C-alpha cells in the first residue's frame, strides 16, 4: 500500500501487481495523472460470460506470487524506459473473479498517445504470455477447465519465445 495525496484527503491506493481484492480502476486511474502526460491509456481485461461455447460462472486465477510480482514489475519498468512513459502500472487479480469483473488492469501515460498505446499493449501481452498466472474457468454446467494457455512454444520451440499479436516495433515508427 502506497500512501499519496489526491485532490483532498490522503488516501491509500493498493498498487501491488497482484491482489486478491476487486481491482479499483477508479483509484488506479486517479494515481495516473501527470502534468507532463498528454495521453492516458487504460486497459481492463474483464471476465466474459461465455468461453469455449459455454456459459461461464466464474474464473479462478492462481499465481505464483513471488515470481509473478517480480515479473510484472520488470515488464512495467521495461516499458517505462522503452517508451519514456510518465507513469505505468499493472495489477492482476488472484482468486475468484466473476463475470463482468476486471481480472487485470494496465494504465500507461506519456506525453503523446502513440507511446501510451504501444506500451499498454506491450505490458498486457507480456503479462498474459509470460507471468506465472493461470486461469481456471468454471462453467455453469458444473465443469471446469484450465484455460487460455500460451501455446507459443508449439510454434517457437522455446518456452521463453513468444509470438505476440502486436508488434511493438511497428508501433514505434
Amino acid at each position, binding site marked *: 500500500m502506497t500512501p499519496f495525496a489526491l485532490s483532498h484527503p490522503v488516501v491509500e491506493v493498493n498498487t501491488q501487481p497482484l491482489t486478491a481484492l476487486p481491482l479499483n480502476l477508479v483509484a488506479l486511474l486517479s494515481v495516473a495523472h501527470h502534468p507532463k502526460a498528454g495521453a492516458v491509456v487504460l486497459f481492463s*481485461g474483464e471476465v466474459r460470460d461465455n468461453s469455449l461455447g459455454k456459459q461461464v460462472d466464474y474464473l479462478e*486465477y*492462481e*499465481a*505464483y506470487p*513471488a*515470481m*509473478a510480482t*517480480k515479473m510484472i514489475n520488470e515488464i512495467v519498468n521495461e516499458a517505462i524506459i522503452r517508451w519514456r512513459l510518465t507513469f505505468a502500472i499493472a495489477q*492482476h487479480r488472484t482468486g475468484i473473479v466473476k463475470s463482468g469483473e476486471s*481480472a*487485470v488492469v494496465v494504465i500507461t501515460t506519456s506525453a503523446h498517445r502513440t507511446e501510451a498505446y504501444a506500451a499498454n499493449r506491450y505490458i*498486457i501481452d507480456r*503479462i*498474459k*504470455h*509470460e*507471468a*506465472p*498466472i*493461470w*486461469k*481456471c474457468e468454471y462453467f455453469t454446467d458444473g465443469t471446469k477447465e*484450465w*484455460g*487460455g*494457455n*500460451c*501455446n507459443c*512454444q*508449439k510454434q517457437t520451440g522455446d*518456452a*521463453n519465445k513468444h509470438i505476440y499479436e502486436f508488434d511493438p516495433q511497428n508501433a514505434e515508427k
Partner: protein
Amino acid sequence: MTIQTFAALKDYFSTPYEVLENLSLISDLKTYLIQQNSDAENILNLSRFAVNDTFVDLDFEIKKNDTICIIPPSSGG
C-alpha cells in the same frame, strides 16, 4: 528434494511434491517426473522450470536446498 507445481500440473503432481531420488540436472528431474506419470509428458514439455524464482534451462545443475518450481504455460489476463 521438494518441488512446487501449479495450475493444471497439480492434476498430475500434488504440491509440494517430494522427490526421493538424487537428481543432478533439471533434465533428470523432468525425465523422472515423466516416468512417475507419463500422462504429464505433454504439459511438462510445455512447462518452464524455475530455481529460486529464476527460470533455468534443462542443463541447470540442481544444488541441495534449491527451491524448484515447475511453471506451466501462462494464462493470465
